[in-house]
C-alpha cells in the first residue's frame, strides 16, 4: 500500500496555528481587491478572530476593511476589542441627539405640532438616543398620546406616563426577553418556550412589531421575526432574573436537540448547554466544532493536503469483521440513510417527510451501532463493501446505485460513520452528498466545507489508501455465504487477490510499498504479474500505481516511465474488468498530466489513442462517464498548459502536438474558448485567439455557441475576429446577428467577418459559374487559374478557388486541353485541388467507359 505517502498533516492543536491558517486564507482573498467586513456586536466575537484581525491590520497591502459596532463598558472600550486599537484603526463614538436636532427631527415626523413642547418631552423620555426616540413615539402612538386624524397630528401631554417607557406590558417584556435568549428560533418553538398558543404568541409579536422591537422577516409567515436591534434584545434579556435565565437556557437546549437544525445549531446548542451549567454535554459539541476548525487548517497551510481528509485526522476506529447477523442491520441502515438523502434532495429540510426519514435512519443506525463502533461504506466503482467486505445482495444493489453515482462524482472512495453520529449530521451530510454538483466548482467546494463540520461522518477521497479499506480480512460467522430467502448473500473481501484472497505476493507488495524500488526491472515484473493475477489484485495495483504517478516526479526516470507507459497501454487495450479499467483510466490521466508538463507530445498520443478506443467500446455507463471526464480534463490540461506554454515560446507547434489536438478535437477547443471568456489580459487573449485560429477550424460550433451566449463585448469581438478567418458560409447567419449589437466595436467586427466570408463565397460562385459558360474564353481563363503561366493575372489564387475551377472545368469535358489540365491537377501540391481533380477524372473515365460499352 502507498498509504504512508498520502498521510495528511495532523490537525493543529495550537490555536495560534488555527488562527494563522484562517488568517492566511482571508489574506489571500483580500490581497488583490478591497473588501469590507461589517460586524455587528464585535465585542462578542471570539478572541482568536479578534487577534487575527489585529494581526491582519498590521500587515500592509491588502484590502481588508473592518467596520464593527461595539457596546462600551461604562465609558471604556471593552477589553476584548482593545487589541484592535492600532495605528490603522479609529474609534467613532455615537453621541445622543441634541435638543436642537430633536426639534428638526420632529418637524419631519410631526410637522403640525409644536416641536418645542413635544421635543422637551421626547428628550426627557429618550435621552436623545435615536432608537429610544423612535420607540417613545411609537409608544405614544399606541397609547393615544400621539394621534393622527384627518391629516393632522395631535399630542396630548396630559396622559404621558413616565413609568411605561416602552409600551410593553410585563408579560410581553418577559416573553421578548426569552425570545432574545433563544433567537433565532422558529415560531413553533417560541410558542413552546412561552407556554402559550399560537394566537396569543402572535398578539405579543404584533405588539413587539408595532413598538419597533421586532420586525417580520417573511411577510407570509407572521411568526418569522427578528429583533430590529440587538441592543433591545440585550436589554430585555438582562431584565430576566439570573435563575430564570439558567432555566431558560436548559429549556432551549432541550428544544434545540429535538428540533430541525439551523446552520449554527451545534454552536448555539453548546452555548445554551454551557449557560445551563451542563458543561460536559456542551464540551461534546464544542469538541466537534473545534475539531472542524482545526481540520480545516491543514488544508490551508499544507499545500499537498486534500480537502477531504484521511482517516488519521478523523480518528476512525479500526474496522470490525462483518458477521452473518450483522448483515440485516447493515443493509437496513444503508437503505434508511439513502432514503434520508433522497428525501433531503426532494423536500425542504424542515418538512415532515425529511424529518421522518432522518429519524428512520437514526433508529436504523442506533440498532446497528449497538453491535459495532463504526461502519465504513466503500465502493470499487461497482460493488459496495462494508468495513472492507464486499456484500452482494439484490435488495442492496438498488440502494447502491445512488451512492455509487454520488461517490463517483464527488471523488469519494468511502464514507465512515461512527457510533455517536447525530441526527443533524445525517441530514446535513446526506443533503450535501445528494445535491453535490460535480460541474459546479463552487457548490462542491462549499459542500465540502459543510461536511467539515461533521465529525462522526468521515469522507475518504479516491486518492486515499488505507488499511481500513483494503486489508481487513473478513470473518463471516464461519461461513462466507448466508441464504436469506430471495436475497442470496455473498461476502467476499474487497482486497481478495491472487490464489489466497487478501494476500499479495511479497515482492510485489514490497515494490509498491517502497517506491524507490520501482525501477525498470521491477516494473517488468509487475507488468507480467498484472497479466496473470485476479481482477481485484489488478485493480489494487492500478490504483496504487495511479497514486505513485501522482506523487512522483517522472522527469528523471525516463526509462522507468517508458515501462509504466507500456503497462498502461497494455491495460487499456487488454483489461476486461470494468473496475480495474476505471483505475487504469485514473492512472493514465495522471500520467498524461505529467507528460503535458514535459511536452512529450508523442508519448501523450501513445496513451491517448487506446483511451479514445476505450471510449468507443461498449462499457457500463459509469465507466463511460469516467473515461469522458478523464478525456475532458486531459483536453483542458493540454489546451491551457501544454498548448498555451508552447505558443508562448513563439516556436511553431510540433507536429506531434497537432496530432494530439486533432485526437482530442473539441475537448481542446472548448477550454480555450472558456479561457478566452474569462481572461482579461490582452496578451493572453491574443495568444488564445491564435490557438483558436489554428485548431478551431471545422469546430466552429463551439465559437458559435459562445457567440449566442451572454458575454462581454470584447469576447464577441475576439470570436468574430477568429471566425472572420476560419468561419464558413454556415456561420453567416450567427455572425449577422451581431451586426445589430449595441456596442459599435462588435458591430464593426461582425460586418467585417460577414463581408469577408460572403466575398469569398461570391468569388467561388463566380468561378463555378464559368463552367456553365462553355465558350473558349471561359475555358482559357479556367485553365489559367488552375495552371497559371508566369505572368498570368490569375496567379496566386487561393487553393479553394483552384479546386472550384477543377469542378468548373469538368463541365468542359471532353476537351484535350482540359483533360490534360485535370490529369496534371491530380498530382497538384494542394491536397484539396488534388483530391478534386482525382474525383473528377475518375468520374469522367467511368462515364467514358460506359459510353464505349453502350
Amino acid at each position, binding site marked *: 500500500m502507498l498509504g504512508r505517502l498520502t498521510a495528511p498533516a495532523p490537525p493543529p492543536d495550537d*490555536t495560534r496555528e488555527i488562527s494563522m491558517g484562517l488568517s492566511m486564507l482571508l489574506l489571500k482573498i483580500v490581497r488583490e481587491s478591497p473588501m469590507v467586513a461589517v460586524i455587528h456586536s464585535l465585542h462578542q466575537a471570539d478572541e482568536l478572530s479578534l487577534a487575527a484581525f489585529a494581526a*491582519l491590520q498590521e500587515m500592509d497591502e491588502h484590502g481588508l476593511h473592518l467596520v464593527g459596532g461595539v457596546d462600551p463598558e461604562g465609558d471604556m*472600550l471593552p477589553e476584548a476589542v482593545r487589541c484592535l486599537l492600532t495605528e490603522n484603526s479609529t474609534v467613532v463614538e455615537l453621541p445622543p441627539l441634541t435638543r436642537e436636532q430633536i426639534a428638526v427631527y420632529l418637524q419631519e415626523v410631526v410637522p403640525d405640532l409644536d416641536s418645542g413642547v413635544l421635543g422637551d418631552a421626547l428628550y426627557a423620555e429618550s435621552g436623545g438616543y435615536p432608537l429610544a426616540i423612535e420607540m417613545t413615539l411609537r409608544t405614544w402612538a399606541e397609547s393615544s398620546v400621539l394621534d393622527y386624524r384627518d391629516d393632522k397630528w395631535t399630542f396630548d401631554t396630559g396622559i404621558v406616563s413616565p413609568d411605561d417607557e416602552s409600551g410593553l406590558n410585563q408579560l410581553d417584556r418577559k416573553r421578548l426577553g426569552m425570545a432574545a435568549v433563544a433567537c433565532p428560533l422558529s415560531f413553533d418553538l417560541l410558542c413552546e418556550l412561552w407556554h402559550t398558543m399560537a394566537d396569543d404568541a402572535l398578539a405579543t409579536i404584533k405588539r413587539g412589531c408595532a413598538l419597533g422591537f421586532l420586525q417580520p422577516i417573511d411577510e407570509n409567515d407572521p411568526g418569522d421575526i427578528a429583533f430590529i436591534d440587538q441592543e433591545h434584545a440585550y436589554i430585555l434579556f438582562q431584565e430576566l432574573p439570573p435563575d430564570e435565565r439558567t432555566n431558560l437556557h436548559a429549556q432551549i437546549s432541550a428544544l434545540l436537540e429535538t428540533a430541525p437544525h439551523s446552520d449554527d445549531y451545534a454552536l448555539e446548542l453548546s452555548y445554551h448547554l*454551557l449557560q445551563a451549567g451542563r458543561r460536559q454535554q456542551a464540551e461534546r459539541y464544542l469538541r466537534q466544532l473545534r475539531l472542524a476548525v482545526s481540520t480545516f487548517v491543514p488544508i490551508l497551510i499544507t499545500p499537498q493536503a486534500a480537502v477531504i481528509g484521511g482517516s488519521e485526522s478523523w480518528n476512525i476506529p479500526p474496522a470490525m469483521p462483518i458477521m452473518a447477523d450483522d448483515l440485516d442491520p447493515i443493509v437496513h441502515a444503508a437503505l434508511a440513510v439513502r432514503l434520508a438523502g433522497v428525501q433531503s434532495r426532494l423536500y425542504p429540510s424542515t418538512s415532515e417527510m425529511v424529518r421522518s426519514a432522518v429519524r428512520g435512519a437514526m433508529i436504523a443506525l442506533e440498532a446497528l451501532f449497538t453491535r459495532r463502533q463504526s461502519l465504513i461504506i466503500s465502493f470499487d466503482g461497482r460493488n459496495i463493501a462494508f468495513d472492507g467486505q464486499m456484500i452482494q445482495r439484490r435488495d442492496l444493489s438498488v440502494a447502491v446505485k445512488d451512492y455509487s453515482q454520488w461517490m463517483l462524482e464527488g471523488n469519494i472512495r468511502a464514507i465512515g460513520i461512527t457510533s455517536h453520529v447525530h441526527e443533524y449530521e445525517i441530514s446535513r451530510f446526506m443533503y450535501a452528498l445528494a445535491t453535490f454538483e460535480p460541474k459546479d466548482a463552487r457548490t462542491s467546494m462549499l459542500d465540502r466545507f459543510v461536511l467539515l463540520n461533521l465529525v462522526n461522518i468521515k469522507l475518504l477521497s479516491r486518492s486515499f489508501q488505507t488499511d481500513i479499506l483494503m486489508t481487513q480480512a473478513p470473518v463471516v460467522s464461519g461461513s462466507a455465504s448466508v441464504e436469506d430467502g430471495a436475497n442470496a448473500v455473498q461476502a467476499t473481501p474487497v482486497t481478495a487477490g491472487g490464489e489466497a484472497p487478501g494476500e499479495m505476493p511479497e515482492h510485489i507488495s514490497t515494490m509498491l510499498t517502497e517506491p524507490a524500488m520501482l525501477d525498470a526491472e521491477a516494473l517488468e515484473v509487475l507488468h507480467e504479474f498484472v497479466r496473470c493475477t485476479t481482477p481485484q489484485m489488478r485493480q489494487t495495483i492500478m490504483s496504487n500505481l495511479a497514486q505513485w504517478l501522482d506523487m512522483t516526479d517522472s522527469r528523471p526516470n525516463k526509462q522507468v516511465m517508458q515501462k509504466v507507459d507500456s503497462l498502461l497501454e497494455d491495460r487499456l487495450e487488454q483489461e476486461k474488468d470494468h473496475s480495474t479499467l476505471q483505475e487504469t483510466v485514473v492512472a493514465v490521466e495522471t500520467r498524461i498530466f505529467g507528460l503535458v508538463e514535459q511536452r512529450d507530445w508523442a508519448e501523450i498520443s501513445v496513451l491517448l489513442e487506446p483511451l479514445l478506443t476505450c471510449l468507443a467500446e461498449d462499457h457500463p455507463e459509469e465507466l463511460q462517464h469516467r473515461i469522458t471526464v478523464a478525456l475532458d480534463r486531459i483536453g483542458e490540461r493540454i489546451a491551457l498548459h501544454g498548448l498555451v506554454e508552447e505558443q508562448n515560446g513563439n516556436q511553431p507547434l510540433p507536429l506531434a502536438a497537432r496530432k494530439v489536438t486533432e485526437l482530442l478535437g473539441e475537448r481542446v477547443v472548448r477550454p480555450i474558448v472558456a479561457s478566452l471568456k474569462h481572461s482579461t489580459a490582452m496578451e493572453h487573449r491574443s495568444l488564445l485567439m491564435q490557438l483558436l485560429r489554428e485548431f478551431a477550424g471545422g469546430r466552429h460550433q463551439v465559437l458559435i455557441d459562445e457567440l449566442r451566449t451572454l458575454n462581454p463585448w470584447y469576447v464577441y469581438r475576439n470570436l468574430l475576429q477568429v471566425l472572420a478567418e476560419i468561419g464558413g458560409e454556415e456561420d453567416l447567419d450567427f455572425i449577422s446577428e451581431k451586426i445589430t449589437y449595441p456596442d459599435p466595436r462588435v458591430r464593426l467586427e461582425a460586418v467585417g467577418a460577414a463581408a469577408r466570408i460572403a466575398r469569398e463565397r461570391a468569388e467561388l460562385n463566380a468561378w463555378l459559374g464559368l463552367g456553365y459558360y462553355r465558350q473558349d474564353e471561359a475555358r482559357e481563363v479556367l485553365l489559367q487559374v488552375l495552371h497559371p503561366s508566369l505572368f498570368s493575372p490569375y496567379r496566386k489564387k487561393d487553393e479553394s478557388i483552384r479546386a472550384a475551377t477543377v469542378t468548373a472545368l469538368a463541365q468542359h469535358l471532353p476537351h484535350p486541353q482540359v483533360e490534360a489540365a485535370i490529369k496534371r491537377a491530380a498530382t497538384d501540391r494542394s491536397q484539396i485541388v488534388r483530391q478534386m481533380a482525382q474525383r473528377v477524372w475518375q468520374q469522367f473515365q467511368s462515364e467514358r467507359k460506359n459510353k464505349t460499352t453502350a
Partner: protein
Amino acid sequence: MTVPPVKSDLAPEPEGFQPAIDLREELDHRLATLGLFGREGCIEQILSYLHLPNLQPRTAIIVGPAQAGKTRLLTGLANMFRGQRLKVVEASCRPSDRQLPGALLGAIIYQLLSSFTPKEVTELFAPVVET
C-alpha cells in the same frame, strides 16, 4: 386615538371619499425616512477614514450605548458599500461565538467564498485543492 377598522371589514368606500390612513403606517413611513438622522457626520468620518477602495487595511470601531443606533448605522454603511460595487460581508456576533475559536473568521470566509464564482474559488484553492 381612533384606529380605523381593518379594510376588509368595511363596505366599499363611496366615490370621492378620502380613505383613512392608519396611524401606525403613517408613523412607520415618516420614521423610515429618518433612519440615519443626525449620523451624517459619523458617516463622513468613517468613509474618509476607510478611504475605499484603497488597498490599505483600516478598522473603524463604532462605539455607542444601547439604542444609539449602531446596528442601523452599520447596516446603512454596508448598503452604501454595496452600492459602490465593493465586496461586503456582514456578520453578527452572538454570545455563543466566544466558545468557538475562529467562529467570526470562519463566518466571514464562508460568506466571501459564497459570493465567488466557481472560477475564482478554483483559482483561490489552486495550490491546495486538486480540481
